[in-house]
């Protein structure tokens, strides 16, 4: 199915990107020193925010979004582990609010782990990591209430946020908390930009853990991602060059998504008839017919 759907090209590009990432990870293993990552403002704010919370003796509140367990929430938890480490040293209370039981499980373990490694497990309360609700707006109401009551001094909203983003941001703003936010949901970023002090935009979010930990794997992967982006940019450039050339040429055939049919008088190529378009949207194979033997009736399982 897939090859007819996407053509060989889709598989090729995906494979290429994969190779770029993996290659750079292995490269980083060999020499991780010389690797450069540009500064990401939102992240330098983390320690400042925690410091402020410590002065005020008020808790740091973290939310890893309302998504299920996936790379996005894992990424958030990796960052929160870093935050917690700092908070633990200052013995600043933390509140990690979760909207998904599986993420809660992971968070529970990571955070306890952090306190253990810092040798202050006694500071780890069961309230520190709590599941609030897995229903979007119940979660929003609960977290907002917590922000108000606990007068959080610093809040971190990192992860998969939807409509509730602004409820958190404005409640936190109302109690005068420093806010660091970041989401992969481009539709929510503007609200964080409007209401929060520091915002991670787009895949700065994914760059964050590499920036904080400097671990070779992450840094390497980040470089690989840059390669991928360059590759995408290059592809776009090539495609747009060929299109620009081809659209000035005349064609005597028209393409209807299945086959070419001769035209009365030649005209310029339509966008759907250019090489790039044909490469990206291969001929649909709906008319491919395969004859196969039938298996005897009975006993189809589920």
């Amino acid at each position, binding site marked *: *199915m*897939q090859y*007819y759907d996407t053509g060989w090209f889709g*598989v090729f590009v995906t494979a290429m*990107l994969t190779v770029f*990432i993996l290659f750079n*990870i292995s490269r980083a293993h060999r020499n991780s020193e010389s690797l450069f990552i540009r500064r990401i403002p939102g992240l330098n704010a983390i320690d400042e925010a925690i410091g402020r919370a410590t002065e005020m003796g008020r808790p740091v509140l973290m939310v890893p979004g309302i998504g*299920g367990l996936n*790379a*996005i929430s*894992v990424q958030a938890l*990796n960052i929160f582990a870093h935050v917690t480490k700092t908070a633990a040293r200052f013995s600043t209370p933390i509140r990690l609010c*979760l909207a*998904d*039981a*599986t993420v*809660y*499980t992971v968070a*529970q373990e990571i955070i306890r782990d952090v306190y253990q490694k810092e040798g202050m497990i006694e500071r780890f309360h*069961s*309230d520190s990591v*709590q*599941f*609030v*609700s897995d*229903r979007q*707006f119940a979660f929003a109401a609960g977290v907002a209430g917590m922000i108000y009551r606990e007068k959080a001094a610093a809040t971190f909203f990192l992860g998969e946020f939807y*409509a509730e983003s*602004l*409820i958190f*941001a*404005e409640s936190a*703003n109302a109690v005068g908390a420093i806010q660091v936010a970041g989401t*992969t949901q*481009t539709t929510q970023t503007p609200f964080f*930009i*409007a*209401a929060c002090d520091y915002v991670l935009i787009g*895949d700065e*979010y*994914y760059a964050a853990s590499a920036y904080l930990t400097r*671990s070779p*794997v992450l840094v390497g*992967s980040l470089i690989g*991602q840059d390669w*991928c*982006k360059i590759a*995408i940019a290059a592809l776009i450039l090539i495609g747009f060059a060929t299109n620009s050339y081809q659209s000035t040429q005349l064609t005597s055939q028209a393409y209807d998504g299945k086959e070419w049919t001769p035209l009365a008088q030649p005209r310029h190529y339509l966008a759907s008839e250019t090489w790039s378009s044909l490469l990206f949207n291969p001929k649909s*194979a709906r008319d*491919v017919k*395969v004859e*196969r*033997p*039938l*298996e005897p*009736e009975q*006993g*189809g*399982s*589920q």
Partner: protein
Amino acid sequence: MTYLASFFTAPAASSGLTIRILGTLVFTAIAIFALSQAPTRSRRPIVATVTFFAGLFYVLFYLWPQPYDRKPNEIPLNSVEAVGFWLKDAQPVVSTFGNIIAGSMLGLGIFSLLSVHLRKFVKKQRDWQFSGILLLSMVAMAVIGYWNWIQKIAPGSPDLENVANWGFPQYANDFLFDGMLQQMDAAMFSIIAFYILSAAYRAFRIRSIEATILLSAALIMMLSLMGAVEYQTSELIRNISGNDPNGFINNFTLKEIATWMRTNLQNPSLRAVDFGVGIGALAMGLRLWLSLERGGVSA
């Protein structure tokens, strides 16, 4: 799943099925016990392997050439097709694994909720009354919900879509769910409008170039969405151009500008962000799949 190896299945309500299920449970229990005895250094590899095979399925599903025009109960022509058939048939089954496992872990969340609020309630800590209310409404909703559900699935039960056949559990469930829960959802959702107003009032100041750009883009969009304003301005412009459809100024109606902004600035810029995010997700996916992040979550 015509082609799914029928080895994994047994006729419904047959003793064979029951035995197999129980057998599987026993086997799993033993396996888990054995696992729990695994030496510390072998733990990471175990988790890594499990993760790898879980991910491998979809990767194969993507890469393996799969027969296009395929009708039910056909037999594959060769081994390549056989694998393709199998992958395609297994996919709907595999795609539920995540939900099932996540579903059976939900208790952890509820446990956390209970432990926090029961403690508050029992130890009469601050706001213990509210914790009580929470626990109460939780129990009520759960009990009523199941009561209603059991009546609904009971064989020969009347059509409960029809209000005429409703009894107490239906009314109670409708009251708690439609009357309260859903309404609270809507209320919380709509509260965002107020926050959007105060946030915009506070943040949209022409302080810096960026803020100014943000503000002007937002303003243009808002105005173009106000049908009346949009309509009036285009009327105005049509008059200026003297109703000449070719008039150059026609390009500058609010809607033209908004549409142009959307197609040539908004969509492309978001698309570019999404490329980055997509790559980020792909990279993170690979790292998790291959358990490359030491000390990370994956293992």
